[in-house]
């Protein structure tokens, strides 16, 4: 599976993904790595219905992402991987999921968080998770939609 974008987005599949990132990356698959959606067939079916018909949506548990990537059908398949939280991204990475960039799209207010961009709020746990990913070689940016100018990690991971 060829990864076009790996993103943290509290809203998972929504307007910005459908209207900006799918056309920009020309992704043919969306992989939603989220435990709550993996347990909720109704939410999963809503997500499947709201992408263009040529795009498939695969919903996996966070700890299943690594094996789903290995089983990915072909190299020509281009995928967007979505996590709801930074902690989920770290969990997936540490259980073997492969990605070398991580886009932060929407990380809304949560306990202990402070605002670092119009749509991204980080708490201390998030910052240390991002630093671990960065040390492992993952390049991190904040960018809500594809046309935005990316905000590099150096500007918010002090």
């Amino acid at each position, binding site marked *: 599976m060829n990864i076009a974008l790996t993103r943290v987005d*509290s*809203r998972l*599949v*929504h*307007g910005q993904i*459908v209207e900006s990132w799918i056309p920009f990356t020309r992704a043919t698959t969306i992989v939603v790595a989220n435990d709550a959606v993996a347990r909720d067939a*109704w*939410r999963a079916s*809503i*997500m499947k*219905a*709201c*992408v263009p018909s040529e795009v498939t949506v695969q919903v996996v548990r966070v700890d299943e992402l690594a094996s789903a990537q290995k089983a990915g059908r072909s190299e020509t398949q281009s995928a967007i991987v979505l996590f709801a939280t930074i902690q989920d991204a770290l969990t997936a990475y540490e259980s073997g999921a492969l990605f070398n960039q991580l886009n932060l799209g*929407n990380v*809304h*207010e*949560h306990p202990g968080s402070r*605002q670092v961009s*119009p*749509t991204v*709020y980080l708490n201390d746990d998030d910052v240390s998770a991002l630093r671990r990913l960065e040390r492992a070689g993952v390049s991190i940016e904040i960018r*809500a939609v594809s046309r935005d100018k990316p905000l590099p990690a150096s500007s918010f991971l002090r």
Partner: protein
Amino acid sequence: MVGVVVFTHGELSKALVDTAAFILGPLERTISLGFAPSESEERIMERLQSAIRAVDDGEGVLVLVDMFGGTPSNLSLRLLEDRKLEVLTGVNLPMLLKIGSGREQRLSELASAVREVGISNIRLASDFLKGR
């Protein structure tokens, strides 16, 4: 009477409801609901649920959202299972004018009628001229 919640990205819903009121006068049992890009889903969901409760007199609620697949649609669809609710996507001004000019029908009939008005009011003007 069926309640109506117009739920969109940003300020669009407020502008639509205000504009419909400008043409027809205030719409009964109708609430507009928007959200900011930075707002968490939990908070938006709470506001959606309280808007639905506020307009529901037991006849059910029609939720009009801007775009299938967007956050307003995603959140509203999650409520379909446990409420007397219809969700209609692609809201436009003619749909609100239809709602404002009479709402005697039951929820499912109203939802279908409003959908038809929304679709039939999308016209390509040059097609119209060709048919003359």
